[in-house]
């Protein structure tokens, strides 16, 4: 098994005929992904990469039975594309776009309430269940099938951790990039819960960043609900304190917003914290064996 995407997932690409979308759709197919078509408004009826193009997500779902969508449209149009997918009943929506206005995402999250869909991103490299389904832009050759779940905010730091794991012979069930934006679709807790419920996943690596309460909330949830070990890292120990203008950010974030403060709290809550990002793989190997 795996979480969210697997070898039976039927994937469409929104913004299908664009240059990046085309390149990454091809890469996904090479990695074993079942891409069944795509959507580019105004180009419905055409063929692209040997697959049908539709004008709307609704048509694409009706014709292909798609249940996963990768969104490659530019940031100004991304929120609308996400809502279109939600309305059409897509279950897993992966949003690659980097630079979506935050208030657009606030509205999207309101629209998504009660719709039982998983939104991954925005500003994410995507999600990959190695050799079965990849929706995103990550270099697939560094991922190998295995028993560890990976979840991160950063894209390239996800690659870094995966490479360190691979060099030590550890593979992944699924790797999820939840994205680096302040308002995002899926949080750490949702992904941890999925890994806990997945019988194939034996342990989890969670990689966070400065800013926001997500990592500590996730560690608290894990302490109460998880049987599987979690290795954690938070990037930004050496980052300067945020240059800020008002008080509101500091008031809302409270005390535990620096990387070190977060890692201290996570450690107290039972997460195996790595302080040196170069040792994520080694620490995982030691903890998990």
């Amino acid at each position, binding site marked *: 098994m795996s979480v969210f995407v697997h070898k039976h997932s039927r994937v469409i690409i929104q913004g299908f005929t664009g240059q990046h979308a085309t390149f990454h759709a091809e890469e996904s197919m090479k990695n074993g992904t079942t891409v069944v078509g795509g959507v580019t408004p105004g180009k419905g009826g055409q063929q692209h990469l040997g697959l049908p193009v539709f004008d709307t997500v609704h048509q694409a779902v009706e014709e292909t039975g798609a249940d996963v969508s990768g969104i490659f449209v530019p940031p*100004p149009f991304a929120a609308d594309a996400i809502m279109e997918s939600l309305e059409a009943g897509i279950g897993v929506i992966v949003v690659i776009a980097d630079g979506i206005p935050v208030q657009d995402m606030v509205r999207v999250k309101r629209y998504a309430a009660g719709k039982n869909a998983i939104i991954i991103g925005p500003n994410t490299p995507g999600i990959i269940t190695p050799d079965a389904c990849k929706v995103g832009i*990550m270099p697939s050759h*560094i991922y190998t099938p295995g028993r560890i779940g990976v979840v991160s905010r*950063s*894209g390239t730091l996800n*690659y870094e951790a995966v490479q360190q794991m691979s060099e030590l012979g550890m593979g992944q069930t699924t790797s999820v990039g939840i994205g680096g934006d302040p308002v995002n679709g899926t949080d750490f807790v949702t992904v941890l819960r999925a890994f806990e419920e997945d019988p194939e996943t034996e342990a989890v690596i969670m990689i966070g*960043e400065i800013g926001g309460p997500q990592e500590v909330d996730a560690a608290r949830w894990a302490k109460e609900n998880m049987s599987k070990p979690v290795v954690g890292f938070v990037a930004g120990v050496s980052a300067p304190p945020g240059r800020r203008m*008002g008080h509101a950010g500091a008031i809302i974030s409270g005390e535990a917003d620096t990387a070190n403060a977060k890692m201290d709290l996570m450690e107290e809550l039972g997460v195996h914290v790595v302080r040196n*990002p170069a040792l994520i793989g080694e620490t995982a190997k030691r903890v998990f064996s």
Partner: protein
Amino acid sequence: MNIHEYQTKELLRGYGVAVPDGRVAHNIDNAATIAEELGGERWVVKAQIHAGGRGKGGGVKVASSIDEVKQFTDEMIGTHLVTPQTGAEGRLVQRVLIEQACNINKEFYLGMVIDRATQRITVIASASGGMNIEEVAKTDPDRVIREAVDPAIGLAGFQCRKIAARMGFTGKQIGEAAKIMQALYRCFRDNDALLAEINPLADIDDGKLMALDAKMNFDGNAMYRRKDITELRDFDEEDSKEVEASGHGLNYIALDGNVGCIVNGAGLAMATMDAISFHNGKPANFLDVGGGASPEKVGNAFRIVLQDPNVKAILVNIFAGINRCDWIAEGLVQAMRELHIQVPIVVRLAGTNVEKGAPILEASGFPFIMANNLDDAATKVVAALEGAA
């Protein structure tokens, strides 16, 4: 993106928030004329810089005569104002805001922010305004009122009245405070703000509520649809290297160490800085070259990093996904040729096309110090620094 206090007040005035009468002065004569036209007996002279904590740095003064208005204006304009938020070098004051002074009965705090926890616009308010609000949040968090806004409904009237009552308002002031909250919310939503703050919201003279100071910060990603706000940007308030970098699609933040960093992705960039610090080095900057980095972009990254005279060694750490290692390598070689770089350069490449990238660097003949992984890279750059010293 930040704007000045006088611009924020102008914006809020347009939404119906009461702000003091006032105008911006660029010199002494200007300031005197404005004060005379405003009338009254006391005026506030406020240095207009983007950093907060101005009062503590002597950037806010009350004048009791036109001569004092001139004197304070003269003291502020042209000097570098140092506040707890500017750093030691301070910020050059180019203009002051002259306002009519008023008698303050009580100060409140009213802010709005996009809260990561609720993922919504959230009102933050307190009966204790002024300079001590962060202290209150730490020592007595129950006195900070938080109310998340449902984006489908907007800030509802009953929420405003609830907040106002908890802030301690009674009678007519409940309605007045509620109106200000609604106005602030509309201004926040309509202009794609990330933060808005009225501090203090003051109960003045005859019981009227007025925004004596206000700050706003806007979402850079949404400015393509907010031309009016974009025009308020003041480049003098921003680090020139950071502005230049963003013009090249690079995200750069200057720090005070001596190891220059060129990395792709914000998370990996921070982790690279962390790894350097872990080996007792000090990063000179944060620099994210982003996705799809061309050789030109890499060259620009070098140019910007090397403008900092403290840089004694550079670590290039690229984990290519959407990027390509061969392009990065070409950019590196080109930069070496054009910029005559003297400091040692440690390079770690991984990911897409890594097998094509390394040979390009080797064939160039330049003395790149190659690293196999992140730990190796951090170790080598700190060692190179010691060798160079």
